[in-house]
């Protein structure tokens, strides 16, 4: 992705060399439109041999093991940065109150000499999208209908990151139940893009992207059904990875579209995202759709391998009209850069590409109309007391769900209803197969395919509000 190059010119406002003690500078006037005046992130991110940005996760590990910083100090500095930036950003719906306790546990372990046994994510601050269940914190899915709901279990991805030493710093904001691309669809708050507080961070994992971008945490978990990790990562200038369906267990991810949902990783470097993905991936017996195929095991993510001979396919249909000229030129610059590095870049045409969005809308709405049936106020969540059963369902759901969610449930219910299943859902599944086949064919003659992550930069806030009542 273009935005992961982190070339000095785009990040010059974020000084990367620091003194060891972090002194917060006085915040500038509240009319600050970006975060450039806020204290920088706590750790020196040393450059790795290839010139790529270093892995924050590995840096944390090195610093903890060498004793140059304690986990508690690290946690405190991230938390203070978080507190300072939150009023402007609103990335988090809930901030954990046990961060320092977890950090202390890591320090105790190191003190006892158990440093080498520390998990790969020891001391790493992780933001978790609020549609991923965490047992010791509320999980709302960004919706009022789950206000104050606390799951009795951790999602498998959360369980694994905790087992490996990660510290969940809080639950990040999102479009309600993952439906949306700006995070303005949250039932609670609007998150701002750290690069320009008047713009959206993207969605639906907007909070996760802005939190990483503003260095409120090191990495974060998001979920991607139709671009919800990749697009906000692009808008916020961080790395976002959507793994292959089945790579990461969906157990504990509040389902939106079961056959499309994945849990993805966001971070400030490709290496971090790779390490993080490795930590949470793998078959899970609680998810029947999780893959049993083994992972890439020992990849040295910082090793510099030459790209020469790599066959890259640029998908022509993704650069059509409707794509900002700025995006097009950035892509072209990236292509040139890759060619300089030895890649063979060709244009690839995938005519079925444009069918993706309509097929997605049918499939995702249909599956979500079913997956959201369980939010009825009967067993958990917000209930609107009523005299009669149908009124209970209707009132609880009407007052708990936001307008975008309601629209998709209605669309999905319609698409699945008697007489329409064949024309919509079944047809969309067939289109899906066509698209998959065309990608497979393209990948026979290309090693990778590239495209812009989004057709534009981050939108201004309020630009994409759809009127539901006109």
């Amino acid at each position: 992705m273009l935005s992961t190059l982190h070339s000095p010119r785009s990040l010059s406002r974020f000084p990367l060399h620091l003194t060891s003690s972090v002194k917060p500078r006085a915040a500038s006037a509240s009319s600050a439109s970006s975060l450039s005046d806020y204290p920088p992130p706590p750790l020196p991110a040393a450059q790795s041999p290839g010139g790529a940005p270093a892995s924050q996760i590995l840096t944390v590990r090195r610093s903890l093991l060498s004793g140059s910083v304690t986990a508690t100090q690290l946690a405190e500095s991230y938390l203070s940065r978080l507190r300072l930036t939150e009023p402007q950003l609103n990335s988090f719906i809930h901030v954990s109150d046990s961060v320092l306790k977890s950090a202390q546990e890591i320090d105790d372990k190191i003190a006892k000499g158990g440093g080498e046994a520390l998990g790969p994510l020891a001391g790493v601050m992780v933001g978790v999208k609020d549609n991923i269940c965490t047992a010791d914190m509320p999980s709302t899915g960004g919706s009022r209908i789950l206000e104050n709901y606390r799951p009795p279990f951790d999602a498998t991805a959360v369980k694994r990151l905790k087992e490996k030493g990660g510290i969940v710093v809080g639950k990040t904001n999102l479009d309600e139940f993952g439906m949306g691309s700006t995070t303005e669809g949250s039932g609670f708050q609007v998150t701002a893009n750290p690069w320009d507080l008047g713009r959206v961070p993207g969605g639906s994992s907007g909070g996760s992207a802005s939190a990483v971008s503003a260095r409120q945490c090191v990495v974060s978990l998001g979920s991607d059904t139709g671009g919800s990790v990749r697009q906000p990562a692009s808008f916020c200038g961080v790395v976002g990875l959507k793994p292959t369906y089945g790579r990461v267990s969906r157990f504990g991810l509040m389902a939106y579209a079961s056959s499309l949902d994945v849990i993805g990783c966001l971070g400030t470097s490709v290496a971090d995202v790779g390490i993080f993905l490795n930590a949470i991936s793998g078959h899970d017996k609680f998810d029947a759709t999780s893959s049993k195929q083994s992972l890439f095991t020992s990849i040295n993510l910082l090793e510099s391998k030459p790209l020469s001979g790599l066959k890259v396919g640029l998908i022509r249909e993704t650069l059509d009209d409707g794509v900002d000229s700025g995006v097009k030129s950035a892509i072209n610059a990236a292509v040139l850069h890759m060619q300089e590095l030895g890649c063979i870049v060709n244009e690839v045409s995938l005519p079925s590409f444009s069918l993706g969005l309509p097929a997605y809308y049918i499939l995702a709405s249909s599956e979500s109309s079913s997956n959201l049936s369980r939010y009825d106020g009967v067993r958990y969540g917000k209930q609107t007391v009523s005299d009669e059963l149908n009124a209970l369902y209707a009132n609880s759901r009407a007052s708990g769900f936001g307008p975008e969610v309601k629209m998709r449930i209605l669309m999905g219910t319609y698409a699945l209803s008697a007489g329409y299943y064949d024309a919509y859902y079944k047809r969309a599944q067939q289109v899906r197969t066509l698209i998959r086949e065309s990608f497979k064919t393209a990948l026979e003659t290309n090693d990778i395919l590239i495209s812009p992550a989004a057709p534009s930069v981050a939108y201004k806030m309020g630009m994409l509000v759809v009127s539901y009542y006109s």
Partner: protein
Amino acid sequence: MASTLFRNVIQAQPLFLNSSALLRRKNGVLYCTMTQTATEEKQQQKSPQKIKVPPQKQMKEVSKIGADYEAVIGIETHVQLSTLTKAFCSCPYSYGAQPNTCICPVCMGLPGALPVLNSKVIECAVKLALALNCRLSFSSKFDRKQYFYPDLPKGYQISQFDIPIATGGSIDLDLPLEFGGGHRRFGITRIHMEEDAGKLMHSGNGSYSQVDLNRAGVPLLEIVSEPDMRTGIEASEYAAELQRVVRYLGVSNGNMQEGSLRCDVNVSVRPIGQAEFGTKVEIKNLNSFSAINRAIDFEISRQVNLHSQGQQDSIVQETRLWEEGAQKTVTMRKKEGLADYRYFPEPDLPEVVLTKAYMDSVGKSLPELPEAKRRRYEEMGLSMQDVLFLANDIAVADFFDATIQKGADVKLAANWIMGDIAAYLKNEKLSINDIKLVPHELAELIASIKSGTISGKIGKEILFELLAKGGTVKGLIEEKDLVQITDLVDIEKMVDKVIAENPKQLEQYRSGKTKLQGYFAGQVMKASKGKANPGILNKVLVEKLNAKV
């Protein structure tokens, strides 16, 4: 283990449903006016009044109908599988457990929970499908059946819609003799796997209802029959045979009272000779086989009466409830439009793929099924009555088979089992697996009587001892010195003695009271402690009593 963990955590949550009171929140109580919706629970709690309708009356009604109209009956049966854990999670299920104690995030439908199929469910489905001669689908899938109701936690039921695991089978049964006997074969349209919903319990005054999710997620097999049955008795025997089969296979305890076997019947009538079916009516709340029988016969006569009065249009497609107390069907829900369940393939579960090797291995593990047993017993020369009794319970059949395998006479073994042993089981409320008597001892007992070692009467005494305390026949005979006296000389000596001791009775006998032979026989038996061979004894007695002095 998982369920325990969740249980503890769940009860700590103030918003969570606790077992004693439903939906009592800080903001108030949920009111549900659902008195119109009768439930199986409510009905089952009323003690069923046993009303015996004599078979002849039923036959009369059937024959009256048979003259002009034909009834067409189909049955949908839900069998609750007795797997250790539920269909899609690892919760155990036990009937009668405290409400909401066998639950976890998956069967509760909590956000983020996912189903994972219990492979035992497939094994049970394949066993049943093979036992019912069905065609198995090499590849079937699950679908979501969507509707809203408080006992359905996810808002959808995981079921199978258009590609069930088995289709096109049949079941063979024999009608009981008191209903005319006869062999029948009924078609099975399909068998599919699905999960059960929870239970709703309505408060006495209908002001609130409580949700118990213990049963949510328990695996069910739904068996849909072809509309081949024509009378109430055929329908109830079909249900009874299904119960027999699932018990033989060990896939379910098939208990209608506990709800592990549930039947809904569809009844319609049409004038004889008409090809198209009449309007069909569904009947629910049938809690026993006899209820199935009586409900169907009632409904048939209700519909026939309407037809004969020219009011067949008042028969509407509806669901009616069988009222055990009033012995009639009543309307449950009027104006039932066709429900749209918005079926679509379950994306959280992969396809169910069966290999030929798997099907064969399951097939090999099947026990001899009731139908095969019945035919085999018939060939052995047993009467139909004996056949039906012995083949009804697999444990009894196995006991019987084991006994005759040791060489016992078939008819005698049948008699002992159906007579004295069955009576003992009934009195003590035991099953045949609980008694201390083992099959080869029964064989030994039969052989001992047959050989004359002991008398029949002694045999019965020994049996009682063996049933209650066990032991061996030989051992008991020795211990209690029960060997029959068959020696002619010995018996003559005893008879002489008794005759000598009872001159008065002898006199009476000689003057015509021949019935006193029994008295003498009794005396000899007493003297011999019951060991005298009755046949020889009576022969000797008759000789001596009638002998010229």
